[in-house]
């Protein structure tokens, strides 16, 4: 029997118990910043080799990304839209025109927040370039998360680095990750959600964080909802049986509630359902799901989707084909890889459904395709662990094939100025037009003109003349002085714009082919139309 003896001490009105072993003494805890620094130090020591390899890889792919990111690919209409909307959110508005629930606004709110910080540091030659600088940061975060994901799938450091290099150096991924797409932002969140779902801590806190990341992912780009099944499966599979039910409830609950904030937002603005005089989420979703012409079946040579597929495969035939095959093998052979691959495979399958195929759809798949290639390599090596030369041979062979197929597009992305036409048109307008003139332009030029001193009322995004009832030209076509854009999209009817064009003459043309940008001057003298709008001037430019 060993009961500790207590002593009485009179302290104020209450008694204090003390024990001879001194267990009463309170332990003094470190201040938060010191313990944080200590933990950071421990983390760095523990993961030193990972950090060194990751840093090296990030320098390589960051360099490839940054080298020429302002001049290739050519600026694209949607990029201008997102940059302008990000600029608008920094000024307290949701968009530079009426916000019509085209996408949830979280993507460009984040873009606005990042560019507000990076603006003073980047040397972007134009507004879209500011957004592209932010995309460099997003790319580095995405690549680092891909490395962690690969490590959590038990890949070696070397193979994890290989996955990141494949993703970072593929010309297809490089081109699309340079462009200011919401998909790039959502992708970083998706990888974050997957990494947290595979946390070795298996705590409710990481599950909640994973759910929050997934919500942010979908709020950044709604199409990523297609990855939800894969993500939820991953989370369940990686959680511990001790607290699986709670992890599932917290993470899926957090994700669902987070995503529900978007319809709630519409509801609070009174724009959930259609009504007179306002836009609505309902109409927007109907439009996105079926309101516009489909792009056709992906493998039908006459479809728009096929054209897009050719564009993608033209830049990089290796990763999409090999990655998809590798993913199927991994799903078949390795149970642990199934959920991660399903994160990618469902959106990949959705491309075949024949509906509208957005231009940057490939973005969502790229890191997972790279991961699948490396995973397959690791699996082959695992089958014959005592024959490393097989791994080496397969790796070298694929490297050779990849580099041979990648080199032309890759070099072009680093060296060519593909934005010459757009820059030329921009320079022409800045030289020849005055801020008092009304100009109708591609959105890629919109913010640059506003920055150059044009009042917002005098710069009009060409779509909005027909599609936004809030945009009115006081004297019809006569209010407009100049127009500038690449070949117009064919999937939308723009009658008012075409009427203006029928009163215009071509003032200047820059570049050729799909990158061509034409500047028109409206003829206010009332003479006969100088421009014939024939189908030959309408080239297919995929628009979102």
């Amino acid at each position, binding site marked *: *029997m*060993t*009961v*500790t*003896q*207590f002593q*009485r001490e009179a302290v*104020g009105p*209450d*008694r*204090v*118990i*003390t024990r001879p072993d001194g*267990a*009463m003494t*309170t332990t003094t805890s470190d201040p938060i910043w010191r313990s944080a620094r200590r933990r950071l130090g421990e983390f760095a020591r523990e993961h030193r080799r990972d950090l060194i390899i990751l840093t090296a890889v990030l320098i390589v792919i960051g360099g490839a990304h940054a080298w020429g990111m302002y001049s290739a690919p050519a600026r694209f209409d949607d990029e201008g839209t997102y940059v302008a909307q990000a600029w608008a959110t920094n*000024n*307290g*508005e949701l968009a530079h025109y009426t916000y019509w629930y085209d996408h949830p606004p979280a993507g460009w709110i984040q873009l606005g927040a990042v560019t507000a910080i990076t603006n003073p540091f980047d040397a972007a030659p134009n507004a879209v370039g500011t957004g592209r600088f932010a995309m460099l940061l997003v790319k580095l975060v995405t690549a680092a998360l891909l490395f962690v994901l690969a490590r959590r799938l038990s890949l070696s450091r070397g193979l994890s680095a290989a996955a990141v290099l494949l993703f970072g150096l593929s010309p297809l991924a490089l081109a699309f990750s340079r462009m200011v797409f919401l998909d790039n932002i959502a992708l970083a969140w998706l990888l974050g959600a997957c990494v947290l779902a595979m946390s070795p*801590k*298996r*705590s*409710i*806190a990481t599950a909640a964080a994973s759910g929050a990341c997934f919500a942010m992912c979908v709020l950044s780009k709604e199409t990523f909802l297609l990855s939800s099944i894969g993500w939820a499966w991953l989370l369940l599979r990686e959680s*511990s049986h*001790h*607290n699986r*039910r*709670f992890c*599932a*409830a*917290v993470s*899926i*609950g*957090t994700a669902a*509630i987070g995503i529900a*904030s978007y319809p*709630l*937002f519409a509801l*609070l*603005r009174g724009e959930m359902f259609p009504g007179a005089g306002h836009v609505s989420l309902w109409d927007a979703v109907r439009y996105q799901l079926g309101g516009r012409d489909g792009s056709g079946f992906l493998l039908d040579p006459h479809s728009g989707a096929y054209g897009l597929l050719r564009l993608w495969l033209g830049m990089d035939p290796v990763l999409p084909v090999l990655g998809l095959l590798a993913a199927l093998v991994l799903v078949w052979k390795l149970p642990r890889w199934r959920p991660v691959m399903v994160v990618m495979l469902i959106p990949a399958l959705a491309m075949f459904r024949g509906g509208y195929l957005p231009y940057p759809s490939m973005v969502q798949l790229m890191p997972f395709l790279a991961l699948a290639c490396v995973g397959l390599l690791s699996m082959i090596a695992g089958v014959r662990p005592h024959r490393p030369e097989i791994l080496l041979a397969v790796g070298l062979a694929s490297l050779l094939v990849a580099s041979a197929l990648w080199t032309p597009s890759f070099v072009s992305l680093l060296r060519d100025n593909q934005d010459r036409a757009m820059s030329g048109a921009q320079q022409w307008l800045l030289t020849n037009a005055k801020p008092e003139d009304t100009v109708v332009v591609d959105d890629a030029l919109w913010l640059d003109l506003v920055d150059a001193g044009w009042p917002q009322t005098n710069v009009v995004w060409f779509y909005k003349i027909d599609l936004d009832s809030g945009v009115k030209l006081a004297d019809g076509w006569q209010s407009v002085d100049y127009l500038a854009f690449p070949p117009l999209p064919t999937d939308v009817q723009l009658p008012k714009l075409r009427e203006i064009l029928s009163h215009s003459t071509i003032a200047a043309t820059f570049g050729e082919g799909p990158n061509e940008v034409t500047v028109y001057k409206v003829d206010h003298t009332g003479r006969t139309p100088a421009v014939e709008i024939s189908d030959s001037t309408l080239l297919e430019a995929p628009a979102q």
Partner: protein
Amino acid sequence: MHPILALAEASSTPHIIGLVVFGVMSLFFTALSATTLRWMIYGWATPAKVQNRTTGEPTGHLDYSFSLLICARDEADVLGTTLDGLAAQSHPRVQIVAVIGSDDIATLAVANAAQQRHPDRIIVVEDQTSPPSKPASLNTGLAHCTGDIVGVFDAEDDVAPTLLEAVDQGYQLSGADILQGGVQLMNVNSCWFAARNVLEYFFHFGSRLRLHAEQGFIPLGGNTVFVRRDLLVLNDGWDEACLAEDCELGIRLSVLGASTMAFYDPDLVTREEAPTDIGHFIRQRTRWDQGFLQVLRKGAWRALPHGSKRASARLMLAMPFIQAAGIVVAIAQIIFAVWADIPIALALFAFIPAAITLLSICIELAGLREFSKMFEINVPLKTYIWIVIGFLPYHLMLGYAAGRAMWRERRGDRTWEKTRHEGHHRQPVVDGDAVVIDLREAARSDYAADSEPIDEPALAASDR
């Protein structure tokens, strides 16, 4: 111009003050609901937390002796079986002290009969304190205790026979002064709010008390609680003026620096029944709430060493009342957010407490599933649905009980309102092919004493 600046310029001062108050309220309720959520999930936060919920691996030796206090009033129906159960504890050194009011002839007879059956383990103490109250009886019994550790049980508790061995190990391994074991209501399907009540216990003992124990500030439960006898005697036992003597003792000893270990071993939880009558439920809850209020007013917690600890203690004791007010204010906030002229970001912010509450309902559903697997109880879909749709009515009941507690405390009415026990938690146990009906289930009889609110002093037998 930025819309916030524009708003500041266009609005009148009262409007801006209104918006600021609205924002601060939203922030407060966000913190509140997040705290509640943390209390709920702490026990499952990591796999290690789940594995550590027991008293630890057997050490192979037993070091302590125990005195178990059991106070009963008008419990003749259930007390006999409970005493037999306690006497059957596998631990070798157990003294059972049954404290019975000297005027309660029937219960006294049952206790004496049990004493005859187990003369080496049970002693019966006649309690003559007036008016009778549970803490007074506990103090009467304490004077007769001889064991190193004093444990408290209620007259209708189903106690696991190996509990004391586990508690002995817990004392050996943790070096704690106080051990709080799990108490679990079992009758999850008996009425619409029973599942919510069951889950309250599930999260309270399975998660929240473990967090409080780790933080060094714990309101103890009313039974399955173990304290070193010397510590109890030195600190004058229980507070006889308090309606929540269990909570009060926990706070008082915590303030003195006593360390507590809380454990929730599914095999060792003490099983109880949830009230199925709204009147009884509200009277029981009123008593707890009023007890919390007394402890809050008594102010022993003010002596805690850190400001943050004092703040969290104050929050914990005031929680029933804050929650009661919270449910009303939260609904008002949402109505405001939808219909009043409030900036969209602020309106969205006002929904965060509701979102966290929604999340806690998801966790409750997961908890119900966990409960049904843990105790192998069949829970039909209907019960899950009641968890969801019963949220608001249940919290309105809690709110009413909290208001009633404040009203009674204000009037100075501190009488006990007794809870009735029907033995719902003693379901037939399937043992091989034979169906063994618990003795007490068979012995159950109508217990009409509590069909009307009792204002005369009566001893409560059921508590946390």
